[in-house]
């Protein structure tokens, strides 16, 4: 019985990995045979970005059971920290190694901010937590938009005023130009790297869920008081899950930043609208369902591009789908109705079996 069960979760995870790899192969074949428009090709890296953030956010929403509206902020931290690094060491470090380091730096920076944000925020509950993460996301975006950073022979300069106040030497290199952002980041991202990062993200998240730590996190989600009563350190495990989630969002940011020559912190890419868009992916794919997040992120990004006629109505459809999904999945009446239906279908068999 034990064996069967362990195999079941492992098998489930394998299907998820296989799905991603298969999708990758199919896309590569389509590109090779000239079936993918350049427009869609240009969207492949953003796809991967969305998929990674969606998985990261699902870790917070589905596994930890807390709503974060600030994940775009963590993406932003990952994007800017890594872009600044890559720009500063553009000529000093060869491409491959530099991008690897950039990913690690983006992940670490987002993890650090996630950890610092998490300490106060995770003490709060429910709605307050959501609104405070939203606030943090906006603060991060605001600060980056006001930040000027440069480096020259005298070292690193930074200011929150304007470019002139940096007081740089002629040959200095401007890294962040306030609202104009970072220009000249090397384009190190590509679809293959994106897919590899998705697989790594999946590996981390799925293994995390099925580990001792993951169980502790889910027990807090299901019943905080009971979790404490069996000796689970609530703050510690919330913080671990949140930090990992933030860090993975940072990785998505790295991928995003290295796909653009100019990186700005705009409301549409790092604002709370982005956080909400990611939330739509997570909800549509099923809260807590990692594979669902991937499918939803791809479908919802792809559909409007394929059906151009729909693109005007895209956001409207997202909104309606979001509301309908929530009511269908979470309304006490709908849950009761589904339970009854299931019982009727499985009548005769033992009731209540998982799945």
């Amino acid at each position: 019985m034990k064996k069967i069960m362990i195999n079941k979760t492992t098998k489930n995870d394998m299907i998820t990995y296989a799905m991603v790899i298969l999708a990758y192969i199919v896309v590569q074949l389509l590109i090779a045979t000239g079936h993918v428009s350049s427009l869609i090709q240009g969207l492949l890296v953003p796809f991967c970005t969305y998929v990674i953030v969606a998985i990261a956010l699902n870790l917070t929403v589905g596994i930890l059971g807390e709503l974060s509206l600030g994940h775009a902020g963590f993406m932003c931290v990952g994007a800017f920290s890594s872009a600044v690094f890559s720009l500063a060491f553009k000529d000093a470090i060869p491409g491959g190694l530099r991008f690897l380091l950039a990913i690690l730096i983006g992940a670490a920076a987002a993890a650090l901010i996630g950890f610092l944000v998490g300490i106060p925020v995770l003490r709060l509950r429910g709605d307050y937590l959501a609104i405070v993460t939203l606030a943090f996301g906006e603060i991060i975006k605001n600060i980056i938009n006001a930040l000027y950073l440069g480096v020259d022979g005298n070292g690193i300069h930074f200011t929150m005023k304007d470019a002139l106040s940096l007081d740089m030497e002629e040959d200095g290199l401007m890294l962040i130009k306030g609202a104009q952002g970072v220009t000249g980041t090397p384009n190190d991202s590509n679809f293959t790297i994106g897919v590899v990062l998705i697989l790594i993200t999946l590996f981390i998240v799925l293994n995390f869920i099925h580990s001792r730590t993951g169980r502790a996190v889910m027990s807090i989600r299901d019943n905080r008081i009971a979790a404490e009563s069996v000796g689970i350190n609530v703050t510690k495990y919330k913080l671990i899950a949140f930090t990992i989630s933030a860090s993975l969002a940072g990785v998505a940011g790295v991928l995003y930043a290295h796909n653009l020559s100019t990186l700005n912190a705009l409301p549409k890419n790092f604002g709370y609208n982005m956080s909400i868009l990611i939330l739509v992916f997570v909800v549509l794919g099923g809260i807590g369902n990692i594979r669902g997040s991937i499918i939803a992120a791809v479908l919802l990004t792809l559909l409007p591009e394929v059906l151009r006629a729909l693109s005007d109505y895209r956001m409207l459809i997202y909104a309606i789908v979001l509301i309908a999904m929530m009511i269908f999945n979470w309304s006490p009446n709908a849950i009761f109705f589904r339970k009854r239906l299931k019982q009727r279908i499985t009548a005769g068999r033992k009731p209540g079996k998982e799945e």
Partner: protein
Amino acid sequence: MSFVAHLINGISLGSVYALIALGYTMVYGIAKMLNFAHGDVIMIGGYVVFVTVSGMGLNPLAAIIISMAACTLLGVTIERVAYRPLRGASPLAVLITAIGVSYLLQNVALLVFGSDTKAFTNVVPFPNLELFDGQLVIKSVTIVTVIVNIIIMVGLTLFVKKTKIGRAMTAVSEDKGAAQLMGINVNGTIAVTFAIGSSLAAIAGVLLCSAYPALTPYTGSMPGIKAFVAAVFGGIGSIPGAFIGGILLGVIENLSKAYISSQLSDAIVFSILIIVLLVKPTGLLGKKIQEKV
């Protein structure tokens, strides 16, 4: 003198926040849910006035009444269709749904009215107050907003304390189950709460757009979030708290814009939310609730 001017501008902004926060705090206090879409109801209220005044040439007062009716209907519909089915579901589900409603309203407005900024005509027909030979100008809309705030605050307090339906609201906010057992129509009471909150949103929309006359589908979003910050600051569920929180937040935002950095003023406002929640999570005038084991 410029400090006083900034202060007055802050009060002007804050009085709008206060008005929005009153709606937030009513709904949060009674239905125990964060109606994320409140800010967007305000935006819709603004558009209704814009269409009726600029498009149809109606008298502003009639337009405001139409807008209030429209928002009331909208609020009640949202409650009935989106929120009521989720009563008793996890707060997370309710909040996500509210975000969905907010998103929906923005995108409906985007499709109907377009993304271009509409120049809203000030509907407050009084001249501005000029002091010290015009060195200090207090906009009439500011004065009207503060007065409207006070009227609504007093009105709401009386309504909640003195009327039967108001007392029903208090009962529902304390314990839905017990209220139901006492014969209170819980769904009806919450619907009334949404109706009141949304008609306040219409007024807030008109005054917001009169003070800051640029109307887009996203007009309500940021003020809505900041008004929630104000409501939390003042103590969520508390009517005077919403007023005080709103004014303080507006003043802080304007002063930080003037003296620290206009880029960072939002960051400062949000930092206040975080500090308040960490130091005194119940806000300035809120009550403490303990979880039962």
